[in-house]
């Protein structure tokens, strides 16, 4: 597959890096220095130029390209690039945008702007944050099948009643499947007799309600959080507050820039906007940030986020969520006391991956680095599942493939060994890291 990536910033470079082993990748960037760096660092063709210029795209071979990924920092540039790409050829075009308004317009009409798929990085990050804080012990979560199915990764605390139970004992929820346990960085495929230990990360797939019920089984003493403090009113902080407002929360939002704070206060009627420096300890004490259920840090850089969340935790906040820009910092953050580190870049990478993994993966979620993936696949006649029961199909697949949920005409079907999979069903499956490429092709 020939892939053209416009914009070689961190997102563009990350995508280029992950695709370059299996595909022909051409990268376009306006900055000659970056072009030179890429030429030497990655096995890609790097071209200096403007992605919105048809001549540049022709030079990159837009006529033969299968995919065009516009991932610059500028929304308009990305949209114009996709539009220009549609003139020069017929690639599947993906635009990365920051402002959700473009996404909302595009969702109205999937051909809008000549964009085939649009990813709103900051909205994705906000959705992840909001999903995670709704479930007190969740580490990660993603939705599939238009929200009917949810993948959630829970960390089992030491004092949890679930710790020490077998999977069979813990799985009291009808529409929930235990698909994976990550223990000391190793993937364990759960069987009925597998014991869940404190410190394990348990990955479950099922309806959002059952995920919530399991969440309270893990930590029965913890209610749904009420007092949420967001530090940093950038796009992610703003989108998080918007989503929280829609879910009935009345969050507090701290922003240091007076104009931005004013703008936020006008846009967010149910949020209390506070204009202050988030690391001002006197302010944090005065506003009782220590009594917050969740502190979310969405400031400009990773250092500030780390500082703000640790300060919040030190003052007594129950839970701290930090946005982390540099993907590799995520584990470090969680090691020093941040409960959840959310990476917008990782979320974007996951979204882009769904179009490069086989021809019909509808949705992909990456679990714990790339130890495993959760895939949503629409079953066609060629699939290993078509017209067979899960037990029969599983015999032909590696051990680390677990079917988590099936939706038939939008309705959730709880998968059992003898469940017959029909053509047209959507299957959400957990696939261990070693077999991803091999398995996706057969689903």
């Amino acid at each position, binding site marked *: 597959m020939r892939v053209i990536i416009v914009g070689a910033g961190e997102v563009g470079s990350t995508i280029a890096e992950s695709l370059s082993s299996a595909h022909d990748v051409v990268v376009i960037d306006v900055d000659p220095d970056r072009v030179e760096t890429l030429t030497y660092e990655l096995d890609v063709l790097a071209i200096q130029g403007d992605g919105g210029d048809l001549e540049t795209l022709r030079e990159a071979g837009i006529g033969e390209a299968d995919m065009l990924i516009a991932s610059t920092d500028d929304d308009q540039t990305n949209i114009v690039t996709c539009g220009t790409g549609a003139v020069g050829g017929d690639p599947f075009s993906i635009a990365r945008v920051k402002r959700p308004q473009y996404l909302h317009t595009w969702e109205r009409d999937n051909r809008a702007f000549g964009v085939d798929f649009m990813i709103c990085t900051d909205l994705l990050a906000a959705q992840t944050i909001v999903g995670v804080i709704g479930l007190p012990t969740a580490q990660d979560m993603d939705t599939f099948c238009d929200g009917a199915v949810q993948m959630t990764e829970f960390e089992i605390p030491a004092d949890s009643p679930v710790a020490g139970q077998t999977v069979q004992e813990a799985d009291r929820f009808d529409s929930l499947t235990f698909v994976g346990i990550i223990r000391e960085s190793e993937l364990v495929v759960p069987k009925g007799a597998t014991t869940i230990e404190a410190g394990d990360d348990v990955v479950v797939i099922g309806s959002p309600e059952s995920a919530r019920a399991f969440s309270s089984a893990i930590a029965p003493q913890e209610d749904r959080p009420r007092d949420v403090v967001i530090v940093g009113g950038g796009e992610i902080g703003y989108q998080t507050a918007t989503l929280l407002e829609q879910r009935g929360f009345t969050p507090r939002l*701290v922003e240091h820039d007076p104009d931005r*704070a*004013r703008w*936020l*206060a006008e846009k967010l*009627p149910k949020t*209390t906007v*506070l*204009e202050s420096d988030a690391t001002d300890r006197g302010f944090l004490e005065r*506003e009782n940030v220590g009594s917050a259920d969740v502190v979310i840090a969405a400031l400009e850089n990773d250092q500030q986020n780390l500082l703000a969340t640790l300060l919040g935790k030190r003052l007594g906040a129950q839970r701290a969520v930090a946005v982390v820009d540099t993907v590799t910092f995520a584990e470090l953050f969680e090691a020093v006391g941040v409960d959840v580190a959310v990476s917008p870049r990782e979320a974007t990478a996951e979204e882009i991956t769904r179009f490069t993994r086989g021809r019909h993966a509808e949705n992909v979620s990456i679990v714990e680095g790339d130890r495993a993936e959760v895939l949503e696949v629409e079953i066609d006649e060629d699939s290993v599942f078509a017209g067979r029961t899960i037990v029969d199909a599983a015999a032909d697949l590696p051990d680390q493939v677990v079917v988590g949920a099936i939706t038939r005409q939008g309705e959730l079907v709880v998968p059992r060994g003898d469940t017959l999979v029909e053509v047209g069903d959507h299957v959400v499956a957990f696939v261990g890291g070693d077999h991803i490429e091999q398995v996706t092709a057969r689903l």
Partner: protein
Amino acid sequence: MSLLGPAGNRSVRVDWRTSLSLVGTVLKYLAVPLGLPLLVGIIYREAIYVFLLTVLFTMVVGTGLERLEPEPDLGAREGFLMVAGTWLAVAAVGAVPYLLAAHGVPGLFAPTAPASTLANPVNALFESMSGVTTTGATLLGEISLDRHSHAVLIWRQLTQWLGGMGIIVLAIAILPELSVGGAQLMDAEAPGVGIEKLTPRIAETARVLWIAYFAFTALEIVLLYGLHLAGMAPNMNAYNAVAHGLTTLPTGGFSPEADSIAAFSAAVQWVIVPFMVVAGTNFALFYAVFRGNLGKMGEDAEFRGYAGIMAVLTAILGGVLFLGGAPPLGDLGGVVAGDVENSARQAVFQVVSIVTTTGYATSDFAEWSEAGKYLLLFAMFIGGSGGSTGGSIKIIRWLVIIKVVRRELFTTTHPEAIRPIRLAGEVVDEDAVRGVMGFTLLYLVIFAVATVLISLDAARIGYTLDTLESMSAVAATLGNVGPGFGSLGPFGSYLAFPNSSKLLMVFLMWAGRLEILPVLVLLTSGYWRS
């Protein structure tokens, strides 16, 4: 002022010729509404020279002023001068029929109202300004068709109708030369925090407002006359129906009857209440309703506040009256304690009349107990909605003020919090918030200063005024309400004040109608020079 100084013309930065020229245009067209009293005079076979001469006068003065500047080019400053000047000029021309009727033309025509109190030019100007500003304060003394012609009394009603939706708004609706600077002119004239452009063209917006205004007026006239035909209102003849229709929708309050609405049956009183409520509502809401957006009314924060405050005040006043808060006044406008219908009607009518700044009365509230009187005095500061024909401070400003106070209380404990002021979800600009606070403070300061001035002026000539009376005189004129307390009651008159006080009140009515700033700005030297 530099205008009069030797180097005046060089330092004046206001193109006053343009302003006066446009004032002239408006005066010229004032000849058209003067046709109504002329027609009434012909119908009742009265001496029509009063209005023929007035038409001639306004045409000559108007055309003369218009010639000052053949190509008027209206800027922001000229706009203020034009609006303020128009209202003063229209009030002055409006006084001409009163003077002609009182004095006649020596050697040619005999006066039609020889002993009229309006023979004094100050009184005539007061009555006329009270008319166009829809105040409804009167010093006509004996209001009676025996003393005044039908034509003069209908002119008195018509001045209120013209002033109600705004003379400038009417001018914008029909005069194409005003369409460019129109929005700014309307802003200077229209009551409330800002204008709402309903349609892309300002002239169309002005037309929409006047059509709605006209339609409600016509409906009320038909209903009132319908009651008469149905036998439920013996004295609500065609003349009275038109006369009261003309002063309800502008929240005016003039009546050709000495006893205001107390002269009519309970049925008439009940019919007038909803029309007063309509008059105090933002007319932009009716536009939304006519276009099928019925929900807009219920969602509108100001309308809810407006309806809410009237309901609360009615309930309180109704309770006071029911428990005997007003002495029985014989058979006219009496409040009957213990009678539910009577207490409810008197309470709702008076509350709606005062809050909307109409000034009609069905009972002589100047004779009520202190509780009722003070309630009505403070109700005079509430006012109708922005974009209505009502005067005073207005509901929308009070809503903003309440929210500002709540914000202050909140930020006392959360000093870093940023709280925009919202009305029904919409953020109110901080400049507008400051404008509201400034206006309200100015309004209250002018109220206080004018109250003192009027008391001093009364003491100068030995006229005794009590506190409530002097406060009500200012509140009722500045707020364009009309009647006050003491001898200024709804069935009383402002006649006893000295001329100096009357001129001050003329100023208060003028400034109050234009919401103070467009008038006050003319008194600053910065407006004229820099």
